[in-house]
């Protein structure tokens, strides 16, 4: 006796196995497309995988919470992966030490630009307060950004989405922007990508070379710290 397909679906949709499996499959497919396209930035694997999964959830009428019950195992690895960034950082430590002034100045300028420009542009085009507050920490890595958003009156889960799209955008436009701006030092390119686009920019930087990756990782960590300290201080004044 084989049970009807509907019963199997009821079982599978309630177990974390399905959410986890489709996440890995969607990412593998997206990564395959990315490699096939010759690693074109526009074929960003996060963007494609998210589009596929969102369509799948919509077609099957699955709630995001149900999907996340499985996908949380992948999400959890963000923690250990963030810790692991210490290794490339250590490898590049000599170069980092020789660039302390440009790093501090670039960090401060970039961090403030990311926060203030995001909020002011959104306000100019009519975004409401919750949207502005959710956008403010958009250049910071997901776990930090969600914490800040909660503190300043944003919607943490919206912030997570905006953070990821910021990362994808930075990874897409980064190379072109640096060429236009006449910046070629891999340490500077990597660091700028990390300030503007956190972990996804870092992932893109690592695909190019280790030096870029390490500087992006450093920038991501530092910008996370700085934004967490700075933003709550002037959020009330900025977001109106």
């Amino acid at each position: 006796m084989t049970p009807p397909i509907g019963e199997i679906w009821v079982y599978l949709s309630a177990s974390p196995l399905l959410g986890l499996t489709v996440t890995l499959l969607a990412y593998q497919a997206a990564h395959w497309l990315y490699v096939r396209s010759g690693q074109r930035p526009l074929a960003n694997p996060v963007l494609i995988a998210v589009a596929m999964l969102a369509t799948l959830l919509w077609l099957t009428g699955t709630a995001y919470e149900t999907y996340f019950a499985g996908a949380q195992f992948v999400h959890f690895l963000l923690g250990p992966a963030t810790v692991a960034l210490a290794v490339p950082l250590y490898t590049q430590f000599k170069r980092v030490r020789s660039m302390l002034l440009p790093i501090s100045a670039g960090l401060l300028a970039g961090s403030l630009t990311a926060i203030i420009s995001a909020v002011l542009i959104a306000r100019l085009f009519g975004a409401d307060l919750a949207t502005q507050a959710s956008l403010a920490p958009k250049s910071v890595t997901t776990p930090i950004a969600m914490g800040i958003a909660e503190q300043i009156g944003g919607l943490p889960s919206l912030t997570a989405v905006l953070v990821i799209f910021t990362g994808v955008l930075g990874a897409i436009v980064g190379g072109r922007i640096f060429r236009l701006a006449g910046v070629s030092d891999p340490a500077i390119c990597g660091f700028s990508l990390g300030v503007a686009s956190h972990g996804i920019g870092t992932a893109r930087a690592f695909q190019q070379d280790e030096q870029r990756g390490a500087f992006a990782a450093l920038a991501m960590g530092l910008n996370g710290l700085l934004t967490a300290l700075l933003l709550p201080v002037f959020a009330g004044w900025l977001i109106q």
Partner: protein
Amino acid sequence: MLSALSLLLVCQLCGEVVVRWLALPVPGPVAGMLLLFLLLLLREGPGEELRTTSQNLLKHLSLLFVPAGTGIVVHLGRIGEQWLALLLSLLLSTVLTLLITAWVMQWCAGRKA
């Protein structure tokens, strides 16, 4: 691989504890990254195992952002209403941040040289 993974988790755990204990505005994993970095300075570098494990984990860093990104489905209503503000804010602010960070760094590096 197993001992390297344990080390990463122990650092993260210590990071979480320190952050909560001192009420720091930093997430645990970032504190864990700083702890591991200090440990590497003390031990003068990562072993072969930690090096390969972290390389493997970071090779697919993008994958780890997919579950949170899929959360877009929860906010389609708000995004639909304010899509222009969101799109322009994300795009222009990201481009500005990239440009200003890179230029400030290049200017400072050039002055020193």
